[in-house]
């Protein structure tokens, strides 16, 4: 079996992994997206993807701390689940396999 990963879903899963040492939550993911991908993304869009990933069981979440800058609201911190890791690996491997099959001459640098 394999879980279908959308491109944005894959990106955000990877960003959560990159943010491993910090808290991965809506705002930090959006910031990381801007930094690494050099594109902006709105917070509600991040939320939508996170909820979808959670529904698929690819991420897990716990409620974190509140802070004054958040109006006293708590964060929801996401971590990639085992299923999520496997899905990322599968995706990567299938890509690599395809890349390996591409004749070297047709790759334009």
């Amino acid at each position, binding site marked *: 079996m394999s879980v279908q990963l959308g491109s944005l879903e894959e990106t955000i899963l990877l960003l959560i992994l990159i943010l491993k040492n910090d808290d991965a939550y809506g705002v930090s993911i959006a*910031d990381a997206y801007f930094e690494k991908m050099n594109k902006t993304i709105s917070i509600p869009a991040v939320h939508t993807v996170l909820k979808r990933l959670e529904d698929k069981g690819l991420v897990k979440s716990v409620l974190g701390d509140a802070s004054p800058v958040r109006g006293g609201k708590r964060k929801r911190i996401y971590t990639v689940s085992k299923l999520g890791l496997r899905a990322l690996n599968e995706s990567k491997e299938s890509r690599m396999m395809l890349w390996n099959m591409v004749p070297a001459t047709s790759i334009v640098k």
Partner: protein
Amino acid sequence: MKRKIPNAPPRWADRMLEWYCDPSILDEVQGDLHEAFFARQSRIGILKAQLLFIYEVLFSLKWRNRKRYQIHSFNSFTMWNNYFKIALRNFSRHKLYSFINVFGLALGIACVLLLTLFVINENNYDRFHTNANRIFRIAQKLKDAQGVVIEHSASLPWAAGPALQTDYPDVVNVRMYKAWQKSPLINYEELEKGFYEEEVFFVDTTFFRIFSFPLVKGNPETALKNPQSVVITESMATKYFGDADPMGKTLELENALELTVTGVAKDVPSNSHFHFDFLIPLLNIGDIFQATGNQWGWTGWYWNPVHTYVLLPERYTELTFNDELKKFVAKNFPEGLRDENELHTQRLTDIHLRSNLYQEIEPGRSESSIQIAISIAAFILLIASINFVNLTTAQSTQRAKEVGLRKVMGSTRSKLITQFFSESILLCVLSFALALGLMALCLPAFEGLVETQLNLEQLIKPDLVVIVLLCVLALGVVAGLYPAILLSGYQPVKILKATGTSSTGGFAALFRKSLVVLQFTISVVLVISTIIIFQQHQFLTEKSLGFAKDEIVMIPIQGTTIKQKRTDFKNELKKNSQVVAACAISDILGRDVPNRPFGIPGYDDRQDLPGLFTDHDFVQTFDVDLIGGRDFNEDNANDVNTFIINKAMLEVLKDKQWENQPIQWGSQPHPIIGLVDDFHFADLRQTVRPLFIGFADSFLGYIAVRVRPGDVMATIRALDETWRLFEPERPFIPFFLNDELNQIYKAEKNMGAVVSTFSGLAIVIACLGLFGLATYTVNLRVKEIGIRKVLGAAVHDIVGLITKDFVVLVVVANIIAWPLAWYVMDKWLGSFVYRTEIGWWIFALVGALTLIAALLTTGFQSLKAASMNPTEIIKEE
């Protein structure tokens, strides 16, 4: 002054987010948005950050973030249970109230449903055809030299259909010709069955390509292909052939034309603007003319008896096709007719209600009768709803303690309002269910009243059902609005401390009284209108027409040999001592007489004036008043080429000289030999026009026989025997002129019957309400009555005390209603040339009637209270 932008996200957006989002995700969403806002604020400025915040809030209002309401099922359900229980207890404790409430409303709703059904039915005429909205009838306007429309006809000349076919091959057209002024005889030789049939239509073979009348047997494509074929309806099949298969059997038209049955159509639905029983292909016009005794035998552009319909292809709109019709007239109509003629289309679905032209196939209904039906329905619903409101508010005082207690126990105003709304909606739904039963019960009677077949299925359409249910709900809400708001506003302390009489006096009572006045005003107006409509109908049917109509027997003779042998026939008739006189006549006197061109001395052109044709003894037979000259006389051989005129014609003649004035008719001048007083040869909607009464051999359609009053039936049997001497092959079907003329005013009679039934119902419903109110008042004042009796009041004092209040209301209602009714009916009567007077006695009568009704309904309750033993009433407390 520059406003300082606060260093925070917009409050309203934040609130919206809190209002929309479920608490379980609010922390994450709101927290993230806030954090992002503060992070951005330093980077891109407050304003941009705020805009971005609003944008992100809007995008966070996603379906999956919506607030999931927790249903407090347990508590809420119990309360509803309680409301329902209390409502039922209330109904059963006040059985009479509840009955009056539910039954009155049910009666009102049933009336409204029936009238709605009627209105829908009237509006759905001819819509059952598959292409109904692309089918048009072409009508013809004939103008005189001055451009004045002298004839606006629903039918076209014979040649129009085929010419249309040539010019516009993609426009399917069909001509329908209904035997002119005559009911042809149809015979089935084998069983020796023969009837004069009214609904015989001669149609083009394209008939079934335009109209969607389903065939039970036979193929619509081929049924009309053969000239000598006929398509009959199911009921005709049973009438002529019984249970036998009609297909292939032979019917005979006028003993002359053999027709093979090639199709059986379903009976034409009642909501069609024409109802054929026989369809015969219009292929051999010559044969048909011969068979139907038509002597004109001419199919050109002048004579216009054929109704012509077109099925427009998509490339034409109604508008563009009317432009084409202009070109068509210019191209095809012969010189001399071109400029005088205009053709235009009528929508098929408009014919029943919005077309009242010359030569309609069947009389339509006027839109005004639809408006009358709608307004009556609205009035009745209003009266019934007023009952509902009145009884509920009146009863409300008795619920005051309940309201007080509920409030003390922690109920809120909104919950009380919900309770009372749900109660009144429950009552409405109950009434509605009862109304459905009542409607089904009354449908046949109502169908008889409006003389149409109504199809209940027309009501069962999803959109209509939803509308009706919404109306019932709305009625419940509106009717419950006043009591709900009034009752829920009570202060518990006041109610529980004192006896709750707060709503019996003051505003509530005034409101109730004015509603009662409104009810009775409407009822009185309706009843007065009914009486006046009936009076007018009576007036029209009984007004002296200036000729004898009561003892006249009309015998149709078109297409018979009697037409040629009529002198012998008349002489034979006159041998009977019961026959006063007899003459042949062209038209049904009193219906109308067509205009014909006469040349009058002193005028250059021929004048189109009414021309009646008859023979010897006309004056004697119809007993018209001969002012001068003489009747057509058998002894005077010259009289066959003469005219008699009426008084109105004197105005047309130059110098009012009439004696022996030569009138040009055909190619010959005919002298005037007699002058008769004006008589109503047309219906009473018109004034008496000038009339020529000519002696002629053609045109004659009937023999009119004046018989002596007495055993008329025996006389008719004797006439029948005489008929058989001359026409043994044909049935003898006479009719009384009087009956025929009464048909003219059927519309008035019909409307009178509908209005009277429903105004009667309105009074009944209003009285029901009064009865309920009287009961309530008596209940409220029962102790007072007891004490009055102890102190020596007589029964009649007490009855007077109670009824007085209501009598005043009814009197006020009458005073308001009288001028209103007078104004409305005066306008209605204004549409008649001959109209009855509105007598003051009508108002007095209706006033007295409503007073008596009010006295009876309230008197009964007060009498009951007044005759009670006072000790029974005041022993408690």
